[in-house]
């Protein structure tokens, strides 16, 4: 086998075949995937089915704390568990750029295998395309996940009530700032790591304590601010966030200061925001803190009013307020 990915690896012929058999199936294989049929046949317990999809396009593909493979598994798992799903199966589709090192691809596939095993999901169907050099960015991955929502779990923004507490499961912005620090040209050095992690255990622990959690979201692209605004709008409420309670690493704050960024708009990959009934908020929080992925969890705010003009505002550390908006456009480093 060549040590680079060539267009032929995506041609559908013997090169594709060997790549899939020798690398993907060998690493990720299970009786369902091994059949390599056009579509996989699956077994699921009864219950409501949930489905989600995401493509992953992160640069660089390997970064402190993770890689695009781990991200692709955990990202989709997290979207499933945000609505209370028990994840069962994933599909896995690669778009590889001609010329990348086979070794990199192998590493990513290994990482996917490890992540899938860690969460207990099976990869049951897949696809590998190769695009010409200069028409991709090393590796793009799509994963689509399905699972079953147990009876009794019914999260929805409409259930949100005034007084509900807003919980953030850990420090804000680690992933986005880690990726930014990798960017060629910025030349920032930190010991930051992406928070890339699966949230299924955390969600289970939370739902065990309080099955009536109103809504959960993972604040990925667009950050905490965008997710809170979405929730406020879908529920028709005003949400207050107390800035001094929002967990954030000094390095993340430092990088945001340097580059003029707002950490509320920075992406996370192993965090969740939950709106929880006030009466059980502390108990949910304790359950979260008992797990490593929730050890820094905090109640960061609450739902303060039903309103025709949904909004999210921050109570600053000096006791004043400001509006917290959704991200508009991309965040760009600035000097002013």
């Amino acid at each position, binding site marked *: 086998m060549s040590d680079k990915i060539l267009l032929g690896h995506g041609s559908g012929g013997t090169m594709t075949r060997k790549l899939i058999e020798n690398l993907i199936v060998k690493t990720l294989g299970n009786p369902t995937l091994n059949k390599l049929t056009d579509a996989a046949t699956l077994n699921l317990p009864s219950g409501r089915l949930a489905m989600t999809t995401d493509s992953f396009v992160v640069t660089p593909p390997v970064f402190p704390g993770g890689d695009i493979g781990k991200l692709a598994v955990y990202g989709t798992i997290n979207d499933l568990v945000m609505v209370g799903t028990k994840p069962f199966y994933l599909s896995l589709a690669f778009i590889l750029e001609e010329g990348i090192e086979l070794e990199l691809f192998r590493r990513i596939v290994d990482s996917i295998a490890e992540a899938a095993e860690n969460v207990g999901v099976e990869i049951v169907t897949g696809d590998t395309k190769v695009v010409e050099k200069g028409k991709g960015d090393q590796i793009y991955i799509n994963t689509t996940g399905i699972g079953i929502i147990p009876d009794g779990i019914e999260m929805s923004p409409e259930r949100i009530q005034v007084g509900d507490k807003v919980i953030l499961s850990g420090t804000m912005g680690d992933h986005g700032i880690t990726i930014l*620090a990798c960017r060629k040209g910025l*030349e920032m050095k930190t010991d930051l790591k992406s928070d890339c992690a699966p949230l299924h255990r955390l969600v289970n622990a939370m739902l065990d304590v309080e099955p009536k959690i109103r809504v959960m979201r993972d604040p990925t692209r667009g950050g905490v601010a965008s997710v809170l605004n979405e929730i406020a709008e879908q529920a028709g409420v005003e949400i207050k966030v107390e800035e001094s309670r929002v967990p954030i*690493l000094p*390095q993340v704050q*430092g*990088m945001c200061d*340097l580059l003029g960024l707002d950490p509320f708009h920075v992406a996370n990959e192993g965090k969740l925001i939950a709106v929880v009934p006030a009466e059980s908020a502390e108990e949910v929080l304790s359950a979260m803190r008992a797990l490593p992925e929730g050890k820094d969890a905090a109640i960061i705010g609450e739902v303060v009013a039903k309103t025709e003009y949904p909004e999210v505002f921050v109570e600053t550390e000096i006791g004043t307020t400001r509006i917290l908006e959704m991200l508009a456009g991309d965040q760009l480093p600035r000097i002013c």
Partner: protein
Amino acid sequence: MCIGVPGQIISIIRFEGIVETKGIQRKVNLALVPEAKVGDYVMVHAGTAIQIINNEEAQATLKLLEELVGDEE
């Protein structure tokens, strides 16, 4: 205008230094503060130190503040 972030110089080679701010290290041009030495805090704007932070003045200002509000009580 002009975002400035304070940081501490942790090493210097010729006109450049490594400056650390809240766990972030970055190469910073020190040509505008030739008298800066390792351990100093500098104000960094766009990758360049524009001034050495004067710790005594900082203390003085804070003291002034405390007095200023103190004499009301």
